[in-house]
Every structure is written in C-alpha cells, then in structure tokens.
C-alpha cells in the first residue's frame, strides 16, 4: 500500500513540475526584457496559462495532503526543520497566485498597475522556484536533525549551503525551459515565435550548466552526487536518457511538431526528479540520525487504505475533467465548437 501512495506522491510531484513548472517559467520569462514584444507576450501567457492556472497548483496541495495523512512523521519532521524555507515558499505562492489573477481580472487595464502585477508575478515565480529547489535538495543531505537544540543546527543548517542553492537554480532553469518550449507552440506570431525559440535554446544551455553546477556543489556534501550515481547505475541510465532526449526534442522543434516537442520536454524534465528520487529510494528523508523511509513513517493500514480509495476515486473525477479542460483549451479545432 505504501508503494501505491509513493506512486501517487511521485506522480503528483512530476505533474506539478511539468504542468505547474511552465507557469512558473512563464513568470520568469516575463522578467526578462522583451522590448516592444512585452504586451503581446503577456497576452500569449495569459491565454496559455489562464485556464489551467488554478488546476496546476492543486498538485502541490495533493502532495501535502497525502504526506500529512499517509506519512505524518515525514510531514512534521520536514515542516519543523525546514520552517524557514517553507515560509519563504508560502510567501511566493501567495504573491504569484494573486498577481497572475489580478493582472487578468483587474477591471481597469492600465499600464502602471499591469506592470506592477507582471513584476510581482515574475519575481515571485523566480523566488518560489528557487525555494522549491532548496527544499527538495535539503531532504536528503543528512543534516536534518530532529534532536538538535541549537537554532543554527536545527533550523538553518539543513537548507544552508551552495548545494541546495544550486538545485534551486537548476529548478528555476528547468521551469523557464519548459515554459519556453510550451510557449513556442502557443503563438502564431513569427516574431514572438522566434523569441520563445531563442529563449528555449538559452535555457536549454542553462539547464545543462546548472546541472553541472549541482554536481560540483554536491562535492562539498556528505555524499557527493558522483558517488551516489556510481552506486546506482540505473540512475546513470536515467540521466543519460534525459540528456539524449535533447537531440530528439530539438529535432521535433525544428520540424515544428510543437505538441510532441512539449511531451518530450516534459518527459525529459520529469526524468530529472525521477532519477533524483531513485538515488535515495526508498528513503524519503535522510536525517542526521539515519534515513526516514516512507515505510517507517506510514500511518496505520486503515488510514492508508482509505487514502488510496480517496485518491483512486478522486482520480476518476479529476483526470477526465482535466482532460476535458486541456481538450477545450489546448487542442482547439478538434472540438465541434458552437458560437463564435
């Protein structure tokens, strides 16, 4: 039963990275200078992200709910040790959640306020994705120490350092890359199309560089990634596959197969957290006093059983409606539409 729930956590996290990631990335892209293209770019992003905006964020809530119901010990350990980063994350989530909606629904669309919304949306997207990476990296450093009494050791050391920061940068680059690839297929305007294509190339390079930075930064950790990878060859294969997919991806982009390119990019970016999880599986959190596995932290079987039922029944409702949402807005022309 634990495995089924871990699968749901993993699937929700991957969908959050892949679907939510592109709207984080859209905010980051809007921070970059766009000159005269600024308004057109904003329109494309509003149109592309608006319908799926709220749904994209539900994956994160789902992860939180599964964790505190099914694995309360993991939830509380993380929420105590990483209180600071979680708070930072929440501030970002609040600001970007409202900035995006306010920008679209402000009854008076004037230059000055629109700029403030855009700026807030962009900055909070950058900020939030940075902290998401920091939090993810902090889970497996072996520094989280529930018995520590010293403030620094208990609440700062777990997330402090070059390695978590480098993972934050990697996440930011991944998000911006996903957004650029996604937006390439969202516009028919040749100038804007070229801009998103250029951004995709830039962020592709940055993802690779940031990945290298993560490897280097991990040398200062208790266990460097190089050692961890060498220990589990399957991960090498996953990472190699992720890298190889770049070739496929760019072939598709040049052939203008935007939908397929999205799928490949999403799959590729999903392989990175997947490979990362495989490095540490079945442990969820590595604390100073040893690993905390999903199995150790699991709630009583009655709870797990009911949680799985809720998730399966919920999926029966959520996936068809999500598919319908994507069909209405993302696969235009295939729908026998009515009206104008």
């Amino acid at each position, binding site marked *: 039963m634990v495995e089924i729930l871990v699968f749901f956590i993993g699937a929700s996290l991957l969908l959050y990275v892949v679907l939510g990631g592109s709207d984080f990335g859209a905010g980051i892209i809007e921070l970059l200078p766009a000159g005269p293209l600024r308004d057109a770019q904003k329109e494309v992003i509003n149109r592309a992200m608006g319908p799926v905006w709220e749904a994209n964020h539900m994956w994160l809530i789902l992860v939180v709910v599964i964790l505190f119901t099914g694995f309360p010990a993991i939830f509380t350990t993380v929420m105590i040790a990483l209180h600071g980063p979680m708070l930072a994350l929440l501030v970002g989530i609040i600001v970007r*959640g409202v900035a995006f909606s306010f920008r679209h629904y402000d009854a008076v669309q004037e230059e000055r306020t629109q700029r403030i919304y855009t700026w807030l949306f962009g900055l909070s997207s950058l900020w939030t994705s940075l902290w998401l990476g920091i939090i993810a990296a902090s889970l497996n450093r072996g520094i989280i120490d529930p018995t520590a009494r010293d403030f620094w050791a208990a609440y700062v050391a777990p997330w402090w350092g070059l390695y978590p920061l480098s993972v934050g940068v990697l996440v930011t680059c991944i998000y911006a890359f996903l957004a650029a690839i996604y937006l390439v297929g969202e516009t028919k305007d040749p100038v804007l199309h070229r801009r998103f294509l250029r951004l995709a190339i830039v962020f592709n390079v940055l993802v690779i560089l940031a990945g290298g930075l993560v490897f280097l930064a991990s040398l200062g950790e208790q266990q460097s990634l190089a050692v961890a990878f060498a220990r589990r060859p399957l991960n090498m294969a996953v990472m190699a596959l992720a890298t190889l997919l770049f070739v496929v991806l760019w072939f598709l982009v040049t052939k203008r197969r935007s939908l397929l390119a999205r799928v490949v990019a999403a799959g590729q970016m999903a392989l990175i957290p997947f490979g990362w999880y495989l490095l540490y599986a079945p442990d969820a959190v590595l604390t100073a006093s040893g690993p905390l596995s999903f199995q150790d932290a699991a709630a009583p079987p009655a709870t797990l059983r009911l949680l799985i039922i809720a998730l399966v029944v919920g999926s029966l409702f959520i996936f068809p409606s999500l598919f319908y949402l994507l069909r209405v807005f993302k696969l235009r022309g295939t729908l026998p539409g009515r009206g104008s």
Partner: protein
Amino acid sequence: MDDLLAARATMAFSLGFHIVFASIGMTMPFMMCAAHWRYLRKKDPVYLELTKMWMKGVAILFAVGAVSGTVLAFELGLLWPGFMKHAGAIIGMPFSWEGTAFFLEAIAIGLFLYGWNRMHPWVHWGTGLLVGVSGFASGIFVVAANAWMNAPAGFDWVDGAALNVDPVAAMFNRAWLPQSLHMQIAALQAVGLAVAGIHAWLLLRGKAPDLNRKALRIAMVFGATASLLQPFAGHFAGTRVAELQPAKMAAIEGLFETRSRAPLTLGGLPDPETRTMKWGVEVPGMLSFLAHGDPAAEVIGLDRFPREDWPPVLITHVAFQIMVGIGTLLAIVGVLWFWFARRGEGPRWYLWTLVACAPLGMVAIEAGWVVTEVGRQPWIIQGIMRTKDAVTPVPGMVYHFYLFLVLYLALAAATTWLLLRQIRTVQKKFGG
C-alpha cells in the same frame, strides 16, 4: 508575545482571513449560476452582464481563497506538528476528499472563466455549477475535520499515542453534521446578504436600476432563505455543544455554577476572577430549556472543571453574543424580505437596512469561529491534547505572525481596491 500565543495568533489570523474567501468561493458561484441560468432561459442581456460581473468577482476572490487555503495546509505542519503527528492519520480522510473537491473546483473554474463560446452553453453553465458544488463539498469536508477536534472519535488514546485508528468513525464524529450544517448555511447567508447589500446601495444611489434590482433579488433568495434556516441550525449546533463540550457551553453562557433552571444571559460581561456575570439580562430557565429541552434541567457550570481547563470565558461569551445577536437581526431581515419581495424590492428604509447588514454576516462567521476555537481551549483535541503540547518547537514564531499580518493586510487592501474598481467599471457602463 510568546511562541505559543504567536502561533495561535497566526492560525487565528490565517483562518479568519481564509474563511471569508472560502465562504465566498463556495456560495457565490451558485448566485452566478442563477443569473447565468436566467440569461440562458430568457436571453435578457442584463443577466449576462450580471453573470460576467459576478464571475470576475468570483475569479478574484477564488484566487485569494486558493492561496490562503494552500497556506493553511502548510501551516497545519508549520505551527502544529505535535497535533498533525497524531491527527494526520486520523482525520486525513476528510482532508483527502477536500483536496479532491478543491481540485475539481479549480478545473471547473478554469472551464467556466475561459469557456465562453467554446462549449455548448448548457455544458458551460454546468461547469459553473460544478465550481459551486465542489466548493461547497470541500467546505463540508474541512468543517468535518474541525468538528473532530471538538468531538474526537475513531481512535483509542493510549499513553500519548493513537491506537485502533478508524478514519471513517473520525470523519463522521458527533459534531460533523451540526457544525457543517451551521457553517454552510452561514456562508450562504453572509455572502447572500453581503452581495445584496452592495447592490442595494447601488440601487439607492440610482445606478443601473435594472441590473441591480435583478442582482438584489437573486442574492436575497440565498441570503434570506439561509437567514431563516440559520436559527434552527444554530440551535442544533448549540445542543450538541452542550452535550459534547460542557466547558465550552458554560463559557459561552458565562455559567460559573452548575444549576438547574439555568437562566439565559443576554449581553453581560462574565468575570472569571469573581465568578460573576455583570450587567446581563437573565431569562429564567431558558438556558436549561435551550440546552436540554427542559426548563428544569441541570446545566453544567465551570465549577465542575479545574481552573486550568477553563476556556477564556469573556472572549467566548462576547463572541457568542455577537453571533447570536446578528443571527437574530438577520432572521428578521430575512422574514421582511419575503414580505416585501412580492412587490419589488421593498421601501427605501429596507434597502438601507440591507446596506447596513452587508458586513454583518461575515462578522457573525468570524465571531462563530472564535466561539468554536477559543471555546475549545486549552485543548487542541478536546480532552485529549492541549494546544501547548501541539505547537512547533521552532522559536521566534512572533516574526512568522508579523510576516503574515503584513502580507494578509496588504492582500485584503488590494482585493478590496480591486473589487471596488470592478463595481465602478460595471456601473459606469450602465450609466447613472
């Protein structure tokens, strides 16, 4: 402010903030659907305009409700890890259903907001209804989880650990039905009357009379009906509190001594030091009658509980008086509506009354939550776990509180400003 108080203040503030937006998010879609339905049936463009106006309000308020709800999910762990360590597995079930309903709501709102002219009009209308239905369901699930803190069930507490966990019994605890009934009706009531008050004010100012009259009528169908039902739901909730949480009931009524023929005290300020009630008006035997259906029945007072197990009596009592006072007033306003509604929307003084009552429903909701939460203190799980044993060990919680105070006040200001801009724009379009 010590860490415990700061954590409690943060939770109170986050919940008090979220509850406003959650109430709107789970009830306003129904009003929007009613207007939309009328448009689809009658093809009257005014109803279309009204639907879109309310829709934009829903979109803005939903966004705020969604982020403040996300914050709360995290805060359960950030503020109360000692609670969640045990409670997560027991009451996770309503939370997982709530998550599902919330997810559906988010998908439906995307479909409704952006789906104009993209799907069959009635399918589109259905997505709007789904926003309301799933939002309403998620409200019930969350309140069921809260009810469990008042009426813990579905586990055995042995040496500081929960054994024999039964999540179904936990979810359907003794308080879930009265509490969620009371809350859901309160949301319909508060939001219906708030919306009606805004449109009554615009009507009085002579703006867009046709639009505002139609809006007022739809909003009042919800607001007035709920106002009439609420006293019954409230009474149901009250008798259940008397049964399950006698200390809370005693604090609510400022009843220091256990007695039969207990009087109901209207107003008044209880003083826990001298164990007396100052300046209240007593209705003899009424409390015994309301709590147990018999004017001679014995009602348990605070004297049956050790002093350290008393909830803050003054706050609980005053908050309850505010809630019931407003509830009574709104019930009268509701009755009057059904009298006036047969001929237009009533005289000007009634419209002014509606304007004055606009914020009262929300005030009553806040007061009601103070009664529920403060009245349960010092327990976080009634009779099982004290709030001080549930709080996070992280020091400096006061900064966490200040951060959210500033953030939420700014957000409240921005949202209000945005809604005012919205209202002004629509009214300008209709002239007047």
